């Protein structure tokens, strides 16, 4: 049984009633097709109503769905040939970042992605998608090769955040992420980043310095996890729902804030409902931007990426205090 969210229960109940009616009708030989028809229309409407108006917190739940497709699900559908390359040559191979070379619509590309596990065992192996410094250093190693061989870089963001244990501190988590930011800002090849699930803070940003930022419709990309934000703001992690709304981290918010470039549609209810359809949408949108970026010169690619970063942020050029609210 697929993981079902609270907000999906009315849909499930209706669907259950339909199947009961159908069973009853078949058993007793009574024609109930009209009733079934009415209910099916009602389900369609309800789905449109619920899935068309998802709140930020509901999107968070979908983005974290246990069956949400991860990079390894998409890779065979997006690429003709994916060769995974491992290790940072310094310490270890990090299983929460996968990378390598692949053919995308016939074009050789370098791919780097964060990967969460699907079950407890895999999650332990992949540290719940929370990369250690060696993961980021592997990413840099592979992306540097993309620069060297003139291959476009495609990154896929899906992490609750960078690893936050003693080992990560000892091996310079901050430095590893900072180096990623620095390296990505300097490349002369196209860089397209796509948030496919959770975009958690600096650990996500490390793969997000790009010419084009795409976001799956139900993904989110935030400076802080909603639970931690709630804990800081209201000393109450159960207020994550409110924090999710305050942080303005959905794909639509990021488009409006000038951070994301395009939202990639997901099947109704989320990517887990139709992997192939999601992969097709992703493939199409990435390809559209890649064609565009590949026609630019290396210098232009680099400079436009720099200018894109330079424009992010909002401020005023006046020291005057004219806030709308006043302290008592």
């Amino acid at each position, binding site marked *: 049984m697929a993981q079902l969210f609270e907000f999906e229960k009315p849909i499930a109940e209706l669907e259950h009633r339909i199947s009961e009616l159908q069973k009853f009708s078949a058993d007793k030989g009574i024609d109930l097709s009209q009733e079934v028809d009415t209910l099916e229309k009602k389900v369609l409407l309800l789905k449109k109503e619920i899935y068309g108006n998802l709140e930020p917190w509901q999107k968070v739940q979908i983005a974290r769905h246990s069956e949400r497709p991860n990079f390894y699900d998409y890779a065979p559908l997006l690429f003709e040939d994916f060769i995974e390359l491992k290790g940072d040559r310094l310490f270890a191979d990090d299983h929460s970042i996968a990378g390598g070379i692949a053919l995308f619509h016939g074009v050789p590309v370098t791919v780097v992605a964060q990967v969460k596990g699907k079950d407890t065992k895999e999650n332990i192996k992949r540290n719940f998608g929370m990369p250690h410094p060696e993961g980021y250093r592997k990413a840099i190693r592979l992306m540097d090769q993309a620069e060297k061989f003139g291959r476009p870089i495609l990154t896929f963001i899906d992490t609750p955040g960078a690893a936050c244990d003693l080992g990560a501190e000892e091996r310079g988590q901050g430095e590893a992420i900072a180096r990623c930011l620095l390296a990505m800002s300097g490349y002369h090849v196209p860089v397209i980043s796509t948030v496919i699930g959770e975009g958690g803070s600096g650990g996500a940003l490390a793969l997000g310095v790009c010419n084009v930022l795409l976001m799956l419709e139900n993904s989110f990309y935030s400076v802080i996890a909603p639970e931690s934000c709630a804990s800081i703001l209201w000393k109450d992690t159960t207020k994550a729902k409110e924090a999710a709304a305050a942080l303005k981290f959905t794909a639509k918010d990021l488009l409006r804030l000038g951070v994301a470039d395009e939202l990639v549609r997901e099947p109704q209810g989320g990517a887990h409902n139709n992997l192939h359809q999601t992969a097709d949408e992703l493939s199409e949108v990435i390809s559209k931007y890649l064609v565009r970026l590949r026609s630019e010169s290396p210098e232009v690619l680099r400079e436009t990426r720099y200018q894109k970063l330079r424009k992010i*942020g909002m401020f005023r050029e006046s020291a005057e205090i004219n806030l709308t609210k006043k302290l008592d």
Partner: protein
Amino acid sequence: MFKDIFRKTKYVTINSNQKQNRSSEVPRQEEAAIVSKKELPDGLWVKCPKCGEVLFNKNLDENGRVCTTCEHHFRISAQGRLALLVDENSFEEWDSELNTMDSLEFPGYEEKLLEAQQKSGVLEGVVTGRARIEGIPFVVAINEAGFMMGSMGSVVGEKIARAIERAIELRLPVVIFSTSGGARMQEGILSLYQMAKTSAALGKLAENHLLYISVLTDPTFGGVTASYASLGDIIISEPNALIGFTGPRIIKQTMRQELPTGAQTAEFNQEHGLIDLIVARTQMRPELARLLRYHQEGAEYGSTI
């Protein structure tokens, strides 16, 4: 009334000749005013949180707010830092008018900003500009611990990026003093991308063969550690400063892992290969001058410095 709070601050500076004397153990009378009135506690005495010694506030000021008994470094304001560091009347502030917007209409942010501005007497979490140390010109940025713990939102990121870009135009080295809790939550994704913005600007600086010295002070964490603070050609820290990516409380909460004593101190970070030098505040000025001198234009190998 706010006008008064945000009036141009006069930076009290110290005669460079006096500070040049590295062996000087005795604090000088002239240094008495290095800390603005605002940050002086009301009392004449202050207890050192590390060794428990009760210190005469005036003596503490004279020693750059470094405990005269155990060398514990008290946090100081950006102004206090400038006064300790740069040549008299050499500081020219940049972008002092850059002001914050509540771009996400985040709950409580406006109140928090106003409170921080009133409490700290500054507009935002970083001061940038150019100055000289022992006559050597450089670009400087100093996080303001007293302003929402130096957290980085749009203004902090923009001011630092502009300062770096101007350093490239002027062909000057950059020194950034970090004190920060990280990216500022209340500006959401916009804060997060300031990490990328400042790092990218430092990439341009490096490409122009200009020196960047990162000085870490207590505390430096999160998005600041994971961006400009970690990208110095030379990384310095004040002794015993807490430096890391994830704060100790969060590590304890999420990993149920108790950090060993001394973890995340400057010394711990140096032992793990993440910091070049640990320099006491009282020695920062001559040490920076020494490093800057190595990198002055025309100071290439074989030429006379």
